[in-house]
């Protein structure tokens, strides 16, 4: 046992040395997590790369938005509190079809431009490797038409910021019976999974773009364009409504949204009826109860 302990200690020492070396590389001219406002000079040192939220116009690094400075080695970004969604590759999003165009659908994802879902980026019935024919183009409306809600993943981002989505997986596709809640995009934290099947019978998809879909857990993992139109039971409907009010209560108070906080707030909300959860005073109490539970878990 002693020999194992000594090895572990040595590993820790090495890690400490590496951390010290990293800190000494750059003089701490830029403190992470400081708040800056537009036009403010973050640093006038040379050699820093300008990331999002900084301006490339002048010699020194100036902030262009109000937010927190994030420094990663030589890259300086300013992260604002933005309600609009700025995409990253690999994000899970929920969106609504707005237009059916030539070989693509235009999806509203709370971003600066409408996102593209190419015909070649969806799973068509009949096998994945089928070549997209002209008939497929004409049949596009039978798969997805204006007003449909889908879940998808961000595949690429064009230079002007337009997102290119894909649903090439069984976990993405048209969303059926459920509720859509729109929250500021910055409140949805990035996690490994964004689709959660809760024990109460509801499924939550926390879209990174701030669109949150709540619905009944699908019994079969079909995905794609098949919609499940079987009636949903009363208890599950109530669970979904309660979840929705919890999400709204948390979002109104700028709380981050992820699976654990949602489950805890759902459980703590049991002391109020679904309607009572909409009152601001109850929402405040709900948030403090949830925070208390999370803090207890963390410590």
């Amino acid at each position, binding site marked *: 046992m002693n020999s194992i302990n000594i090895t572990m200690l040595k590993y820790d020492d090495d890690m400490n040395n590496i951390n010290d070396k990293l800190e000494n590389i750059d003089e701490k001219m830029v403190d992470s*997590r400081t*708040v800056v*406002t*537009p*036009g*403010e*000079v973050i640093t006038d040192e040379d050699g820093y790369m300008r990331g999002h*939220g900084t*301006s490339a*116009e002048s010699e020194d690094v*100036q902030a*262009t*938005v*109000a*937010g*927190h400075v994030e420094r990663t080695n030589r890259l300086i970004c300013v992260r*604002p*509190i*933005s*309600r*609009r969604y700025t995409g990253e590759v690999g994000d899970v999003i929920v969106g609504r079809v707005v237009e059916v165009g030539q070989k693509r659908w235009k999806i509203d994802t709370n971003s*600066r*431009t*409408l996102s593209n879902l190419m015909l070649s980026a969806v799973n068509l019935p009949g096998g994945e490797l089928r070549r997209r024919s002209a008939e497929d183009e004409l049949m596009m409306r039978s798969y997805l038409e204006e007003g449909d809600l889908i879940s998808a993943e961000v595949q690429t981002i064009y230079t*002007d*910021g337009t997102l290119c989505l894909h649903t090439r997986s069984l976990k993405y596709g048209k969303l059926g019976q459920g509720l859509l809640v729109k929250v500021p995009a*910055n*409140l949805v*934290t990035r996690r490994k999974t964004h689709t959660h099947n809760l024990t109460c019978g509801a499924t939550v998809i926390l879209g990174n773009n701030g669109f949150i879909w709540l619905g009944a857990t699908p019994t079969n993992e079909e995905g794609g364009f098949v919609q499940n139109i079987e009636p949903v039971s009363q208890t599950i409907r109530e669970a979904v409504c309660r979840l929705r009010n919890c999400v709204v209560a948390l979002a*109104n*108070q*700028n*709380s*981050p949204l992820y699976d654990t906080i949602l489950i805890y707030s759902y459980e703590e909300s049991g002391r109020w009826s679904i309607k009572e959860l909409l009152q601001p005073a109850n929402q405040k109490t709900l948030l403090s109860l949830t*925070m208390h539970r*999370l803090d207890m878990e*963390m410590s």
Partner: protein
Amino acid sequence: MAGLELISDQGLRNDGRRADELRGINCRLGVLKQADGSAYLEQGQTCVLAAVYGPHEVNRTRSIEDRAVINCQYTTAAFSQTERRATDSRSQQLSLQLQRTLEACVLTGLYPRSQIDVFVQTLQSDGATYAASVNAAALALVDAAVPLRDSVAACSVTYADGEPLLDSSYLEESGRAPSLTVAILPCTERVVLVDSGSRFHMDHLDGLVDSAVRGCRAVHQVLDTKVRQHVAATSQLINRW
């Protein structure tokens, strides 16, 4: 109003301020949940509400190839002044002016073929309404996380009895004394707007603009602090876990 003194012998104005004192500024960001950015601003008794939507898609006919279009709408509420007025005749002109002022500070080149909507409404008008609108619009843009070259700060000044009076109230503006509104980019100290509806001698111009610029800097200091407080407060929970 005959015999109305805008500034007394002791150097006090009608509301007890000195010549170079601003009125109290109160503001709140993020007041409209449906807008991308919004701000409510009070400068003394002047209350202005601003909302920003965008940048978002716009149809081809109205878009510009290499930058975003800024669409401003400046309105005055009918109940904002002592007499009820349906429309303000200067609304359209002020909208265009506001657009040009904001174009100087917004980095429109980052969003080609999009549009940024800025809606400003004066809810209560007690002088310096246009300056307050510019300030409110700037706050709303910051709240919407629209990249700005620099913030904008505006201040109005009235010339009375040889003294420039900063942040004029309605009483001071409605008299025969000339008024001026100036907006600057605070960090780069560049003047982006000088607007006056009255006539005065050229010799007074520099002095007036200088004192207005000083007022703008003071306004910017106050608004900057409020913005920082807002950022810290809203990100408090997100940074907690």
